[in-house]
Every structure is written in structure tokens, then in C-alpha cells.
């Protein structure tokens, strides 16, 4: 029973309608901002998409349940395969938000605050960022909230063995979404004991629950069955030691690497993250809600706060650049705390009204105000999380694979970061005449076949093989890398690999400018008026200068910016070091985004001045190019 003397599930149909409404609102927001294909911002998502489509093994811990669900989504007859796996994230993130309404009711929230909690969680920036790409974190939010809902369903009537067994089975299954869910077990156990004092004496139920939990874990037998699909640098999990390394060993040694001494700094980062997700007033409301929950419903407090604190502490110890996604389960709990905070405010208003029932108008206005604040919250979320124009990877791969001649070898990362090209060749582009060094055995470096590499350049050198998984045997030592095709992000550059310095390209230009740029000169450029059918815009720029430091430029097509880069993409510095003569010619095909409408578009070159007063950009119009 609630503290108001009536059960929140008195109107289960109304509560279900509220949960479905929250699901629908969140799903529409996610669908509006969903990535249409491969995401440019998350390398792991390419691997997860490939693993789902081919029923292979992604990186540790293998994520069997996630892989199977994503596989089912790949059969949806809508969009490309990557879009369908993105849709799984959107569906389950919205499902988590909807399910949180039910959880809110079971811990004593009124209908409106429970719906508020679901919407706030659904619109929180970290969850939203994961709901629009292929990743495990949004689906895992659904798993965490689902397990919680089952536990609370059992707690309403602890005599119902089936509920507890279902909860235990869901616990085991949820580990196939993310193994870190195991850390939430102590909070579940404490709540279960508090809910049923005789729990430890109910041996039959506990035995059945243990069996159900193990049944949920059986999914991990998938790992040795598909061990041959494990990718670099992970060993195939086909023996007990490698199986352990792939699962529990990887989670414990690979994730929680932040030393305890660094925890204060990490907790400060968490505080900033929670403000970023819920705004400062929202955080204050959440803190108030925690206090109210501890005061009015301590048993529920121990469950929700236990899950929250465990997740915050463990996620704070995750030493990865994108560690913020590990906090998503705690954000679900915090959204519930905010809803309790809203109830505390309403209770305070009631007290000010001398305990009399609030006039209906005042209550309606308060409820409307609660939901009205979500409108700018949603607008901010759309501005932050919109990935609907994230077509850069697909655009680049289509153009790059069209640009390489027959019989070429294409070198890319062998691990998670090389799966974009493998995906494209399998599901979109064909080009089986191009050898993929990330999939097939690389040709020896002495082989005369044309060789290209997709990698990031550091200084004038290709990035180290260790970081990106480039096959060391596929590249000659210290090769020359000449950029030939460039997408809008710095990682999306295709370099032609040469063992000797490239021959000087044609330095003739159609448009001569002779514009001074610092100590160098922008001599002129040639721009082809028509893009290729795969939207490559052919641009040659000619520069002269003797300095070691190249100018910084930033192309723009139809108002869409490309990443800034140093002229020559590393080769200016190398040529200057080797004493090569000026002028310097950069001849690159720029990949125009597919969301630009067919027709003429202005091409500009931004010349960046990194002066003492801060950066300034001079945009030089180069002419118009027609896109098909």
C-alpha cells in the first residue's frame, strides 16, 4: 500500500496507458534523431552491427542476448541493416522509459510523477545519445529496468514464487546485454531479504531461482560455439581460460582501471554529468526526492539508492573515454528520485494549504507545469542528440570504394574499427575485386598492387598499428601516404600508400589567386564543375612556401564543413624536412554528404589564422559544383 492508503495499481489500465504513452513519445523523439546508417562517432557500433547481421562475436564480453535481438531487428524491412540495429537501441531505450513508469508506480509514485520520471529518463542526454546508434547501453537500460520491475512485482506478493523465478531468470539474461549488471546483485538481494523475512528459509523457491538464473546464463555457451568469429585482438573463447578472459576477466581487468586515489575527481565528473543530464534544478529536485524516499519508504530507498550508488561508484571506476554511458542505470534511478522530489514539493504545498485538499485547478496547474518543463528539455535533447544527418561513414565508404582501382588492396583496422569497410562491402557496395586486408590475409608489402589505407594520420605518419589494428605486414616501413578521398571527419580519409616519394602532380591551376597566407602563398586552384556519380568533388589546390608549418584549411560544400586539416595532410612537413621544392600540390576528392540535394552547391575553402587573438577564418568561394 502507498502512504496515501491506496495502491498505485488501482487503475492498471490507466498506468499502462501512461507507460505506453511515454514509450511512444520517447520512440518518436529517437526515431526523429536516429542515425540512418553506420554511425561516425562510435567505432564499436560498426562491429556490433556486423556481429548482429552475421551472428558473430563482437568484442568481449560477447553480448549474446544483445546480438540475437539485434539479429532479429536486421530482418525488419526498413532502411539498411545498420539502420535496423540502430532501431533496436531506439525501441529498447523507449521501452526502458515506459517501463520506468511501471516501476515508479510499484515504489509508490503517483501516476503523474511516475510518467514524469519516465519522460525525464527518456530525454536525458546520455541515454538519448545511445538510443540513436547501435550500441549495447540503451538496450541494457531496458534490461536493468525490466529486472527491477520483475523484482518489484514479486515484492507486492512475496508468496508468488513464479515472479521471483522470473526475476532470477531475467537477471541471468540481462548479463547478455552487459556483464556489469552483475554488480547490481547485492542491492537486489538486500531488497529481497527486506521484502520477505522468510526468504532464506524458502529453499525450494531459492533453488528454482538459482536454476532460472543459470538458465539465463546458458546464452554464454554461444561464445565457444561461435569462437571462430572472434576478432583481433581478442583470442577465441574456446578454452576455459580464454572464455574467462572474454567474459568476467575482461570486465574486471579491462573496465575498472581508474585507481581509487582518482575517485574524488571521478565523482566530480559524475556531478557535472548528472547536471548535464538533468539540469541543476533537476539535480536539486532529485536530492530532495532521495531524502523523501528515505523518510517515507526506506525499503524502496534501499533498493533504488543501492542500485544508484553501486552503479555510480563502479561506473566512476571505468577508465574509458566514453565512460559516461556506464552511468545510464543510475540515471534511471535519479529520474525516479526527481519524481519523488516533485511529490515532496506537492506535499509541501499541501501543508501550506493547512492539510486541506488542494483545489483541482491548482493541482492541474502544478501537474501541467511539471510536464511543461519537459518541452525545452526535449528541444535541448534534439539539438544535442540529433544524428539524422550522420551519413558521413556511408558516404565516404561509397566514394572510397568507387575510387580505388580494380585489384587494389585496402588496409583498415582488423578489430572493431575496421568493420565499417567489411560491412559496406558485404551489404552495400560489392567491390569483391578489392582485397580487404582487415578480412583477408594481407598481401606482402613488396606486392606491386595499388595499396590504400584508411587511417588517421599523426604528424606525417600513419597512426601506429597497435592502436587501429592495421596489419603490420600490410604496410611497408614508414610509407608515404597521399590523401586521395576525404570525408567530413578526420578519420574518414583514404590514403594512397607509396614506398617512394610521390611524383610531383600537375601544378597548373584554372583559377590563380596568389593570396598570402602567413608566410606562404595560396597560388590557386582547380575545381571540377561536376561531381562524380558517387559525389566526389575534385579539388586541386596549389601552394608555395618554405616554412615547416603548413597552413590550416577547412573545406565547405553547400554549407557543410569538413574537418580542418594542415595542407598536405602530413606531407608538407615531410617534404619540407626532406628539402623538397615548392610549390606544394594537394589533390583530394572531397565526399559531398548524401543529404545535400542534387543540384549546384557552393564550394568554399576556409583559411584559418591561428593568431594571438584567437582563431579566425577567411572563407574563399571557389565556385559551384553540381551534385547528382
Amino acid at each position, binding site marked *: 500500500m502507498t502512504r496515501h492508503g491506496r495502491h498505485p495499481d488501482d487503475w492498471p489500465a490507466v498506468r499502462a496507458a501512461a507507460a505506453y504513452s511515454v514509450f511512444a513519445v520517447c520512440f518518436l523523439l529517437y526515431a526523429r534523431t536516429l542515425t540512418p546508417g553506420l554511425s561516425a562517432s562510435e567505432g564499436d557500433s560498426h562491429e556490433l552491427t556486423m556481429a548482429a547481421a552475421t551472428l558473430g562475436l563482437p568484442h568481449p564480453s560477447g553480448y549474446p542476448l544483445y546480438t540475437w535481438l539485434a539479429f532479429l531487428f536486421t530482418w525488419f524491412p526498413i532502411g539498411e541493416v545498420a539502420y535496423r540495429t540502430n532501431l533496436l537501441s531506439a525501441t529498447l531505450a523507449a521501452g526502458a522509459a515506459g517501463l520506468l513508469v511501471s516501476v515508479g508506480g510499484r515504489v509508490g509514485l503517483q501516476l503523474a510523477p511516475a510518467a514524469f520520471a519516465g519522460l525525464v529518463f527518456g530525454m536525458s542526454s546520455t541515454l538519448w545519445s545511445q538510443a540513436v546508434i547501435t550500441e549495447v547501453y540503451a538496450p541494457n537500460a531496458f534490461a536493468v529496468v525490466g529486472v527491477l520491475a520483475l523484482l518489484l512485482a514479486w515484492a507486492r506478493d512475496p508468496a508468488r514464487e513464479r515472479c521471483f523465478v522470473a526475476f532470477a531468470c531475467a537477471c541471468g539474461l540481462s548479463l547478455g546485454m552487459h556483464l556489469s549488471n552483475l554488480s547490481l546483485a547485492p542491492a537486489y538481494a538486500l531488497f529481497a531479504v527486506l521484502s520477505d523475512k522468510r526468504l532464506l528459509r524458502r529453499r525450494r523457491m531459492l533453488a528454482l531461482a538459482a536454476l532460472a538464473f543459470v538458465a539465463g546464463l546458458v546464452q554464454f555457451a554461444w561464445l565457444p560455439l561461435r569462437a571462430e568469429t572472434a576478432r583481433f585482438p581478442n583470442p577465441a573463447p574456446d578454452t576455459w581460460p580464454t572464455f574467462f578472459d572474454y567474459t568476467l576477466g575482461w570486465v574486471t581487468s579491462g573496465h575498472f582501471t581508474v*585507481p581509487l586515489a*582518482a575517485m*574524488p*575527481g571521478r565523482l566530480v*565528473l559524475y556531478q557535472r554529468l548528472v547536471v548535464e*543530464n538533468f539540469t541543476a534544478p533537476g539535480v536539486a529536485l532529485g536530492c530532495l526526492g532521495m531524502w523523501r524516499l528515505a523518510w517515507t*519508504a526506506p525499503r524502496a*530507498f534501499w533498493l533504488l539508492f543501492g542500485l544508484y550508488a553501486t552503479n555510480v561508484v563502479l561506473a566512476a571506476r571505468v577508465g574509458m*573515454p566514453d565512460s559516461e554511458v556506464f552511468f545510464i542505470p543510475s540515471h534511471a534511478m535519479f529520474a525516479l528520485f526527481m519524481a519523488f522530489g516533485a511529490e515532496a514539493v506537492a506535499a509541501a504545498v499541501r501543508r501550506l494549504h493547512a492539510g486541506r485538499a488542494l483545489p483541482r485547478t491548482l493541482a492541474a496547474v502544478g501537474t501541467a507545469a511539471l510536464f511543461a518543463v519537459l518541452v525545452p528539455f526535449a528541444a535541448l535533447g534534439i539539438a544535442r542528440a540529433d544524428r539524422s544527418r550522420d551519413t558521413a561513414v556511408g558516404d565516404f565508404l561509397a566514394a572510397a570504394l568507387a575510387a580505388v582501382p580494380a585489384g587494389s588492396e585496402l588496409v583498415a583496422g582488423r578489430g572493431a574499427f575496421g568493420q565499417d569497410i567489411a560491412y559496406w562491402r558485404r551489404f552495400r557496395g560489392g567491390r569483391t575485386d578489392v582485397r580487404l586486408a582487415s578480412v583477408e590475409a594481407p598481401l606482402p608489402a613488396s606486392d606491386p598492387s595499388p595499396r590504400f589505407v584508411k587511417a588517421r594520420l599523426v604528424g606525417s605518419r600513419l597512426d601506429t598499428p597497435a592502436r587501429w589494428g592495421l596489419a603490420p605486414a600490410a604496410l611497408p616501413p614508414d610509407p608515404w601516404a597521399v590523401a586521395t578521398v576525404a570525408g567530413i571527419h578526420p578519420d574518414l580519409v583514404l590514403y594512397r600508400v607509396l614506398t617512394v616519394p610521390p611524383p610531383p602532380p600537375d601544378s597548373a591551376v584554372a583559377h590563380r589567386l596568389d593570396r598570402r597566407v602567413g608566410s606562404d602563398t595560396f597560388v590557386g586552384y582547380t575545381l571540377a564543375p561536376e561531381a562524380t556519380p558517387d559525389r566526389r568533388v575534385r579539388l586541386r589546390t596549389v601552394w608555395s612556401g618554405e616554412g615547416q608549418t603548413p597552413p590550416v584549411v577547412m573545406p565547405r560544400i553547400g554549407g557543410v564543413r569538413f574537418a580542418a586539416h594542415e595542407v598536405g595532410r602530413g606531407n608538407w612537413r615531410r617534404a619540407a624536412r626532406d628539402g623538397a621544392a615548392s610549390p606544394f600540390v594537394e589533390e583530394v576528392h572531397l565526399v559531398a554528404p548524401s543529404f545535400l540535394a542534387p543540384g549546384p552547391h557552393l564550394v568554399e575553402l576556409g583559411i584559418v589564422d591561428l593568431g594571438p587573438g584567437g*582563431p579566425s577564418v577567411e572563407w574563399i568561394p571557389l565556385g559551384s559544383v553540381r551534385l547528382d
Partner: protein
Amino acid sequence: MTEATPKGLRRAALATLLLGFVAMAAANRLVRGAALPDAAWTPAAMLAGLRSLPPAGPPDVMGIVEGYDDGTVVVRSPGAMQHIRVHVATVIAVPTGPATLADLRPGTTVAIWGRRPWWGGSLTTRALMVLVR
């Protein structure tokens, strides 16, 4: 939820919550102004630990310089998965000494300390450090 809970459970809950608030406040206090030896000013150390750094705790954003506007740099943060536009107020240092705005070349990794408004809008930079050139 039933209200038939022992008083001890409530007291323990309130005490734990209080302890949590104190821990968060203490974390803020501890990182403020804490300095680290030079060896820790590396991206590896930062990404692994995001330890305390001047001027006030860990940086708000770490990322790679990808673009420019007049008076601003565009930093791509792997965590935030979005381009973050920051106003350059001060470039405080490179790992080996003072830095200038000219050190903000494309592809450099930077750590940024800033101020974000309460509604969670764009970060305004208070300090910036170039970690890798």
C-alpha cells in the same frame, strides 16, 4: 511500498544518504586546486584516471580540435559524441610549458575547463591545455 518498516531501516537510510552527500561535497573539496606531477599530464593518464588538474578538478571536456570559427575552436569529444563549441579564453599550457593559441592545430588533443550554464547549454572555456600536438 509498505510503511511497516523498522525505525532502524529509516535511520540507516537517512544516515547513508547524508554520508553520500558529504562524500560528494568532500570529492569537490579534495580536487579543488590539487596539482599533479608533470608525468601525469599525458592523455593516457588523463583518459585512464582523469585525475585532478589545475585549475579546478578534472577537465570538463577532453577532445580533438577539428574545426574553427572566429574566436572559437570546435572540439570533438569522444565521450559526448558531439562537436562541442568552446570559446577560447585562455590557453594555459602544453605539457612542457606555456602555450599560445597557435598551438591549437587541427588534430591536437586538448583538455578544457569551463563553465556550463544550469540548463546544460554550451561550455564557456575558462582554461585550456594542449595535451598532444
